């Protein structure tokens, strides 16, 4: 069950504020600081997902990926195996909205995915990676580490 239930209206312009923030932090405090904030978001805001992963339960992670990409109107494919979860996003809703608003996409945009995912997996038996195929197209992988 999702810790944060979200079922009502969406304010997609927040993708623009995120984009501005990524650049601001990277430009003024460095990319490592940005990664640290994003990893903290993954570990602390998504504590429920993190703690379940640490206990070997990926159910909330799956629900989170499925619900929020669906809710944002993404075209995606989720493939689940016992030790691996793959999410291929064919058109990132955040990048799509930035383009709709006429805003340049931050060169750090994909860190919001890779570092938040890394934070969710931190100190658990799972690890994450993101392969960027093209702008707005990526494959996110969560894989159980070999013991």
């Amino acid at each position, binding site marked *: 069950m999702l810790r*944060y239930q979200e079922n009502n209206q969406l*304010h997609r312009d927040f993708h623009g504020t995120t984009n501005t923030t990524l650049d601001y*932090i990277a430009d003024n405090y460095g990319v490592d*600081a940005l990664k640290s904030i994003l990893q*903290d*978001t993954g570990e602390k805001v*998504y504590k429920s997902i993190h703690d379940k992963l640490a206990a070997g339960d990926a159910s909330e992670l799956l629900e989170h990926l499925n619900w929020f*990409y669906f809710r*944002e109107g993404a075209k995606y494919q989720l493939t689940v195996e016992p030790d691996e979860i793959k999410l291929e*996003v064919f058109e990132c809703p955040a990048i799509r909205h930035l383009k709709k608003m006429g805003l340049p996409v931050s060169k750090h945009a994909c860190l919001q995915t890779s570092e938040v995912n890394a934070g969710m997996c931190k100190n658990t038996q799972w690890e994450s990676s993101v392969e960027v195929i093209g702008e707005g197209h990526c494959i996110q992988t969560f894989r159980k580490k070999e013991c």
Partner: protein
Amino acid sequence: MIPSDHFVRFYNEVFKFLDARNGLEDYYLEISRHQEHHCLKHFMEKGLQGMEEYWGQIRVEENCIMSSEVVGDVRYSHMKKCPSLSKVLDNDAEPCEKYCLHCPGWVAPLMTKCGFYYIKYLRALDVPECGSVFSDNLEKISAIRQNLKRDGFKYIFDNFDQREEVEVNKQERLKV
């Protein structure tokens, strides 16, 4: 992607990081510049009515419980339940004590740029309820500020110290 539903919880993490480095004020200015993309032309062309339209859309998209009205040359807004702070309080990560300050932090510079005086008032920073007043009538909004102070609001923010700039920008707006 950070879902737009969860942006404010990320925002909260950013605030904690910046507050520890005394960096909130400069960041608010950056957000204010970003918000110009959505608001500046609209507010310059339509004034208080433009604000009603912009925040009317925000009310729907952000699921705000709020009311607002324009009475003559003053716009009043009362946020009965702020969805932004509500989410930050409903959060497994610790809330930034200064979370509410981001709102006057970006709105006040934008209002100065549009030639409006602005007040944000709250009784507490951990209760998702606040009010705002907008006007280009300094005498009227100053009287409203006095009343808010008398009514015991603990936190009152304004851009009255930017009076010269507000007045210059007001004249520019009236040309539009």
